[in-house]
């Protein structure tokens, strides 16, 4: 449900906070979330992202989550400032300032840099989720739009509007990534919920059209079997097909267990490739060169002293 949101900040406009009087110059719109818009702004401290909300209660609820996260994790700054701004319509809108994350969506990144980046990006994303799970949070609204990828597959989660304390009802979700929508479980926040969405994200990256086609069916027929069939038909997903089935079935305890399994999967292929390419004579040669090195070091030390 998109709520009509009339507030528009124009490029070059200067926003001044009502309470703290900090000034921000608007550069451009970065994106639109379920309960607000995110702009790139310039402040004294440099480039930042400004999220302005429609509803003060909704946005504050999101801010509270960010503040709780920040208390647990001193290494990362989630929030720079919270304030209100005066819109052109004379109404006050709540906003907060956060770190600006440079990056593109996973699909854009893979289009540009090639699909061989997919396993690493997946692993990095699982790592990000694992950090949240360790602290008792579930990301909730995991989807392609909410993940940004920077150089060398570095991953950042954006839009924390869905982040939910474990055990509560997921605050915000997107149907096609939602476990409940696929009749595969509850809508309560547990780590497996994120892993389900992660699996959906992988399918979405590879087979968006077929996946959308499945959502048109009757709700009673929607099931993980349908999804598993789709995974089985997709070549790009073949290396992780087993992993995805486990994630859809809720078989990983949390993202760190999922990440471990994902890593093993990739590592196994690496080692297989390596061992096939290292012939016995090369190992022998290596041993010989080690001995030679030992002797020369010995001579070197002797002649030096």
């Amino acid at each position, binding site marked *: *449900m998109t709520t009509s949101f009339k507030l528009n900040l124009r490029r070059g406009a200067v926003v001044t906070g009502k309470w703290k009087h900090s000034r921000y110059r608007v550069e451009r719109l970065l994106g639109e979330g379920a309960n607000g818009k995110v702009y790139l702004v310039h402040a004294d401290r440099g480039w930042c992202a400004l999220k302005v909300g429609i509803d003060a209660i909704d946005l504050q609820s999101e801010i509270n989550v960010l503040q709780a996260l920040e208390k647990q994790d001193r290494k990362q700054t989630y929030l720079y400032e919270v304030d209100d701004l005066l819109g052109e319509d004379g109404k006050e809108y709540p906003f907060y300032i956060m770190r600006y994350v440079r990056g593109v969506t996973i699909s854009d990144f893979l289009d540009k840099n090639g699909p061989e980046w997919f396993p690493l990006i997946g692993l990095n994303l699982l790592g990000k989720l694992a950090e949240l799970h360790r602290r008792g949070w579930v990301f909730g609204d995991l989807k392609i739009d909410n993940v940004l990828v920077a150089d060398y597959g570095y991953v950042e989660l954006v839009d924390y509007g869905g982040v939910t304390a474990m055990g509560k009802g*997921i605050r915000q979700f997107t149907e096609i990534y939602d476990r409940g929508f696929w009749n595969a479980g*509850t809508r309560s926040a547990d780590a497996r919920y994120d892993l389900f969405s992660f699996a959906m994200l992988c399918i979405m990256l590879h087979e968006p059209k077929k996946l959308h086609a499945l959502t048109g069916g009757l709700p009673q027929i929607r099931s993980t079997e349908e999804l598993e069939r789709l995974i089985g038909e997709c070549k790009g997903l073949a290396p992780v097909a087993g992993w995805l089935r486990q994630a859809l079935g809720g078989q990983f305890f949390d993202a760190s267990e999922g990440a471990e399994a994902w890593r093993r999967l990739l590592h196994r292929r690496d080692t297989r490739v390596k061992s096939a390419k290292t012939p016995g004579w090369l190992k022998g040669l290596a041993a010989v060169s080690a001995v030679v090195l030992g002797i020369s070091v010995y001579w070197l030390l002797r002649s030096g002293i």
Partner: protein
Amino acid sequence: MKQILLVTDGCSNVGMSPVVAAAHAKSEGIAVNVVGILDYGDVGELGASEIEEIARAGGGLSRLVNMRQLSQTVQMMTRKTAVQTIQLAVQKELKQVLGNGSIEALPPEKRSEVVRVIDELGETSKLQVALLIDASASMKPKLRAVEEAIHDLMLSLQARQGQSEIAVFHFPSSKHGEDCKLDLDWTDNLKGISSIFTKFPMSGTTPTGPAMMQVIDFYRQGDYGKKSRNDETDGMMSDYVV
């Protein structure tokens, strides 16, 4: 927290105005949300304005959506209205402390504390949603989507920490002297229920207002039943005390 969620596709044409009925609901502490379904032609300007009016009178939200968006809309409206109900209650309390009483007017640090309380209460308070479904002829092709939305709503409500119940009514009722028919009494679980609506009347009338009044009555009876039961236990307790 009590809500009525009206799902309709057009104008009421029989009996009491639904706007008046919604105002009644509000005075009983029941918030009224309205979803207008757009498919197969337009709800028309009159329908659209009526939908908005009903929600305004009932202190709830209104949306016009396609069938595809129905589940998500119903789920989000219910959640938003629940938060709003809590917010109004908290605001009332704050009025004595702050004078103006608006949460938005608080500085961000104070707002943070108030919203934490609202979120907590919103998640843990008991919530009842009575769904009132317009099953007049034009709505018939849309009932499957409505049923899906009901199942989806139940799923979201079950994820709450507080107790949540839904009841389902449709109107018009084929029974004489009844404005809407109860399809499903208060429940917190839809497991095993594949079809909520079984029999449909062929009547073309849309008695939205009278149907809503009947749902308000249903709420009232439920409360009355509970109150009298409480009285009984109180009586027993006092017997013990004596």
